[in-house]
Each structure stands twice: as C-alpha cells, then as structure tokens.
C-alpha cells in the first residue's frame, strides 16, 4: 500500500523533469506515448497524510485515485488523460493553503479537492476563491462552507453539520427517550453540531441535561463521564470525532456506561470504528456512505475493485474521494470545458449517475449553495461483527429532505462577471 502511495508523485515529478530534460522521457515512456504530447488534466489533491487525520485523508485520496484510473480508462476528461497531484496538509491549515497555492501557481492544476477537517476545508475554499479555482470540499463538514461563506467556485460533497444532526436526531427521537446529554469538542465542528442537535431536541420538547465542552485533543474524559453518569440520560450524544472519539468510547466502555445508556454520534466512520476494541463498538449514528448495500447497483463491483487495489474495505471517506474525482469528469463533459466558471455552472444541479452515486436518492449538487444532497445512512454499530462488518443500516435518509434551504443557511452566491 505504501509503495502505491509513493509511486504517484514520483511519476509526476518525472514528467516535469521530462519537460526540461528530454533525456528523461524514456523513464516515463508509457505515459508520454498515451498522452501524445498533450498536457494531462491535473487535479490538485490536498489532504492530511501525516498527523492525526492521516487515515481519513489517505482513504479519500485512495478513492480519488481509483476514480481517476477509471476515467483514464474511458478516455480521460475531454480526451485528455487525468493526473492527481497529491500534497500533504498534515491537517495544518496554513500548510493546506500553502500547498493549494503551490499546486495552482506552480503545477498549474485545473481543479482542486480535498480536506478532512472543517478548518482546512474552509481555508482552502477561501484560498481557491482568490485564485478563481474550482474546489470540492471532500470532507470538512462545517455549515459555513456552503452557508454564510459560500463561494461560486466551491462545491461540498460531504454533508453539512445540520444534515448530520437532523438525520441522527430523527432516529434518536423515534427510538429512545428524550433526556439527552451532549459532549462537544471545543471548535467550530462541535459547536455547530451541538447547536443543531440541541435545537432539534428543544423543538421535540425533550430535556437537555447538559453539555460537556472539552478541548480538542483531550485524552482523559473521566471528568465529563462522571457528570454524564450522574445525570442518567437516555441518550449520550457524542460530537467527538477521530482520536477523541476513540479515546472517549474506550473509556466510557470500561466504565460500563455503554450498558446503561444509548450512545449516539452524528458521524460514524469505518476508520475509527476499526480502531476500537470489540467491547467499545457500540451506539447509534450516521454514516455518510456504507459499503454494504445489497440492493444498490454497482456497489458490489466498486467494493471489490477497491479491496483489490488497497487491501481494505472502502469507507465513507473513500467514497467521498471517489465521487469527488468523478464529479470533475462529469462536470467537464457537461460543460465541454475545464474552465472554472463554466465547470461551476455545469456542476450546479449535476446529478451523480448510479455508478458514481453508489447510493439511493440520486445525490446532486444543489444550485443555491453547492451542497451535495447525499444520502445519510442511519443505523447501529454492529458489535458482534468483524471488520468490515461493523455497522447495520436501519434507515437511508435523502439529503434533500434533511438540509436547510440555501437562504436559511445564509448563502449568497455571486459569480464573477
């Protein structure tokens, strides 16, 4: 897997060198022959490959690379081959924007995509706007990216925090009591989720027992868990993600709390679930995509190919990367151009075809705010299952029905004249 990852950028550099020193063309001959002197279409891909979010960023890139392979097999974008140039953001927002600017100015990429944390996605969206560059926020859920800070050049494939809260709460209210306790990581993502979920709880006339706000990167959750235990809620809603989520679940399980209350999380992901010991794999939550959809066409083939390529099962992140890369190709075909303003117009309302969507409800990029209306998979963590069988879907909710309207989100989109 690691050689697979390394290979790609090396090829890219070799090509660049080949342009300068003609002698080097031999090394890259297969590619050069295929391209026949045409410059390839370049996708600049910025994701964290080191640091805490490395696993998620790698899944997104893997999905994208698989999609690019398929696109190239079918003749590329408008007859040109497609290349991914991957750069590491290390989940460091400054580095993410530096890399985006470098890809645009130096490598002359045609589109950009990526981002796992909300902060880096929001910053890249802004940086891409300054360069009039098309950008797909693959991960990075915060509402503002397709809300108050929406841009004509930015499209968001992953759900926004409101969609996740709405999907989760609808199910929780149906299945469990209305006495809830919340646990919020102290940054934009957590605060947005809390705002959404607590509003929904209020509207349902439920009881908000409390909200433990903890710093991001906290390793010991005992203090918060003591308060939760004393409050005896029906549901304990956990907004932590990544490492924090794993640490919290591990500790809560050892305290025996998973037996006395329902745990719920607005965003479950295959990667952190796989990092949990068996006892801690429990609770309800939302997956943005799930690999096991027996009745959905093309999903089985997608999963099999991915597993063969990467020796792992595709996660929600893998699918997001895959669908994002395909979105560029689809939009270019529709626009008959790879110029950013034309592509952006073409992406508005673009429906993902079944072989890319790989989920029900025909997801599409909404015109008003450029948010993709993807399906949310609500369900329960499958404790007895073995990897990758860690989740049982109970409901598939259409994003369209969950999302707030662009006006309510405060998005005022202006295209350049």
């Amino acid at each position: 897997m690691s050689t697979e990852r390394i290979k790609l950028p090396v090829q890219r550099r070799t090509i660049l060198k080949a342009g300068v020193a003609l002698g080097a063309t031999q090394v890259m001959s297969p590619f050069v022959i295929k391209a026949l002197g045409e410059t390839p279409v370049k996708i600049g891909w910025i994701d964290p490959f080191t640091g805490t979010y490395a696993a998620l960023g790698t899944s997104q890139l893997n999905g994208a690379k698989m999609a690019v392979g398929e696109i190239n097999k079918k003749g590329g974008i408008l007859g040109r081959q497609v290349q991914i140039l991957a750069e590491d953001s290390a989940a460091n927002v400054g580095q993410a924007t530096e890399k985006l600017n470098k890809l645009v100015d130096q490598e002359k990429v045609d589109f950009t995509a990526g981002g796992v944390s909300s902060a880096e996605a929001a910053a890249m969206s802004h940086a891409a706007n300054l360069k009039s560059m098309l950008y797909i926020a693959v991960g990075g859920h915060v509402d503002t990216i397709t809300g108050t800070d929406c841009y004509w050049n930015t499209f968001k494939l992953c759900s926004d925090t409101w969609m996740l809260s709405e999907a989760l709460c609808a199910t929780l209210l149906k299945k469990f009591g209305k006495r809830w306790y919340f646990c919020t990581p102290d940054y934009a993502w957590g605060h947005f989720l809390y705002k959404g979920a607590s509003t929904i709880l209020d509207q349902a006339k439920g009881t908000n027992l409390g909200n433990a706000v903890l710093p991001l990167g906290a390793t010991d959750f005992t203090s918060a868990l003591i308060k939760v235990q004393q409050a005896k809620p029906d549901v304990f809603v956990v907004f932590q993600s990544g490492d924090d989520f794993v640490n919290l679940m591990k500790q809560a399980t050892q305290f025996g709390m998973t037996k006395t209350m329902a745990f719920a999380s607005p965003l479950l992901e295959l990667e952190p679930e796989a990092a949990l010991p068996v006892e801690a794999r429990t609770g309800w939550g939302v997956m943005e995509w799930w690999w096991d959809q027996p009745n959905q066409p093309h999903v089985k083939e997608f999963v099999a190919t991915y597993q063969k390529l990467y020796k792992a099962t595709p996660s929600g992140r893998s699918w997001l990367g895959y669908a994002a890369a395909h979105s560029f190709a689809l939009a270019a075909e529709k626009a008959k151009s790879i110029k950013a303003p034309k592509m952006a117009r073409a992406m508005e309302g673009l429906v993902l075809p079944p072989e890319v969507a790989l989920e029900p409800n025909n997801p599409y990029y909404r015109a008003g705010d450029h948010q993709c209306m993807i399906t949310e998979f609500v369900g329960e963590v499958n404790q007895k299952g073995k990897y990758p069988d860690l989740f049982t879907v109970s409901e598939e909710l259409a994003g369209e029905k969950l999302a707030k309207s662009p006006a309510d989100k405060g998005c005022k989109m202006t295209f350049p004249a």
Partner: protein
Amino acid sequence: MSRRIYVNGAVWLLLLTAALWLPLIGGYMALASRVLVYALAAMGLNLLLGFTGCMSFGEAAYFGLGGYGTGLFLTHLTHSTVLAVIAGTIVGGLAAFLFGPLVMRRRGIYFAMITVAIGQIFYFIAERWNSFTGGEDGLAGFSRQPLHLGFAIVPLDAVAFYYFVLFFFAIGAGVIALLLHSPLGHTFIAIRENRRRAQFLGIHVERYVWASFAIAGVIAGLAGALNALQNNFISPINLYWVESGNLVIMAVLGGMRSFWGPLVGAIIFVGIQDYVSSYFPNNWETFIGGLFIVAVIFFPNGILGIVRRRMKAA
C-alpha cells in the same frame, strides 16, 4: 574585512534578483517569501542562541503573537498592511520584553524549559479563546491589502509580496548587524563565551540577556507578522513548541556562530520540506528527521561553520 563585503554583496544581490533566477531552478516566489520569513525569525532567535548563548525553545510564541497581532489588527482596526506589520512587531516584541525578566535569570536547559512554558501558555490561549483568536480553527478572514505608496497603488501579488518581505528582512537583518558590531553585541558575545567572567567584570548579565531576549522577540514578531500576511491566515500551530524547534534547527543547520547561518538553514529546511513533501506526501517527516540527525552529528557548527573552516585551512 574585504571578504565580508564580498559575501554580503553577493547575498544581497542574490536576494534582490531572486525573481529572475528562482523560477529557472524550479522555485517560486511564495517559497522565497516563506524562506525569508523563517530566516528572519531564525536570525532573531540566533541573537539569543548563537550570540548570547541562551537556548530559547519558545521563540514561536513571539512569532505567532506577531501573526495574531497583524491578523487581528487587519480584521478589526485598519486596512493598512504596513501598519498591521508594525502592530504585529510591537505585539511580539512587547510580549518578549514583558516576559524577559522571568527568563533572564535561568541558564541552559532551565532557560529552554521556561521559554517552552511561556510559549505553550500562549499556544493554549490562542487555541482555546475561540471568540477572539478563532481557536483551533485559526484566524482567517483578513488578507493583505494593496500598498498605497502615494504615487501608486501596488497590489501585493507573489512577486510584489516577496519584495515587501525582503524590505522588512533587510531592516531586521540591518538592525541585527548593527547591534552585533555595537558594544551591546560585544557584550552579548562576552556573556556567551563566559558568563561568570562577564559578571566579574561588572556586567549586569541578566539585563543583557533580557535585552537580547526582547530584541529577538521584536524580530520574531516582525517575521510572524509577515508570515500571517503570507498565508492570509494564522493558527495556534504557529505558536506550538514544534515551530520553535524548527527555528532552532534552522539556526543550527546553517551555523549558529555565523551571521548568515540562519538564512542558509532556512533555505535548506524550508526548501527541503517543500520539495520532499511533494515527492513523498506520506513519508517526508523521515527526511526532515534525518536532516536533523545528519546536521547534528556531522555539522555541529552548521554549513557555514564548515565553509569557514575550509577557508581557514586553505
């Protein structure tokens, strides 16, 4: 003496003409600006590290504070880029001046640890104070504004911004050079060479360490202000102790005893990080780590230390 003039002339000529030759060797102007920003911060640090002999491991605090000063100034108060840079410099320098008395009595590892402690305190303030600093997500929403020069309005694109940075770099480097040739600078070196003897000679060592610390803070604040403008963004990670460590390695790598050492170190460090992380987005940390190890084992006096020894031998 004449050699020094040649060296300085060559360095300034190369820096001034960077826009002409850098693209030819595969570089780009934003990279050059970043090199200058870090070089400036490392040169300020080196005043403490190489010339006064105090191992500061918390310089990123003043670097980051300069950035926040500039960012918040642009967000809330004014649209003048130059004023924002001055504001950032004052914030960074003032913090170092105020905390100087706490660190000036400590030596060796204790000096390093108290500077770390203060740096980490600032880091956590920036990280937790969501409403003011933007918290973990960082401070965005400001951008460098065109310069109003009276006769023209200059937008700060990549090339113009490089010369903008170079202008401040020249001021910073000039101040450091003047200082090192002044009695104050000679006192710093006397303290580095033998603190106790300096004390016996009636030098108030602690006051001079304070001065050195404060001046390094001013330079770091200036560099941090430029860094915030470079990215149009500032986040707590710029205050984290790892960033301090990076500045130290730049100084050591280039040569702690040389005036231009930190510049050479910054060129190598920033250049390699940029280049290698594009080749190996997953494994570039090994190269940086290896660079640290090789530098420490084989070039304890830095690249310029070797060059100087060769020249002496010849």
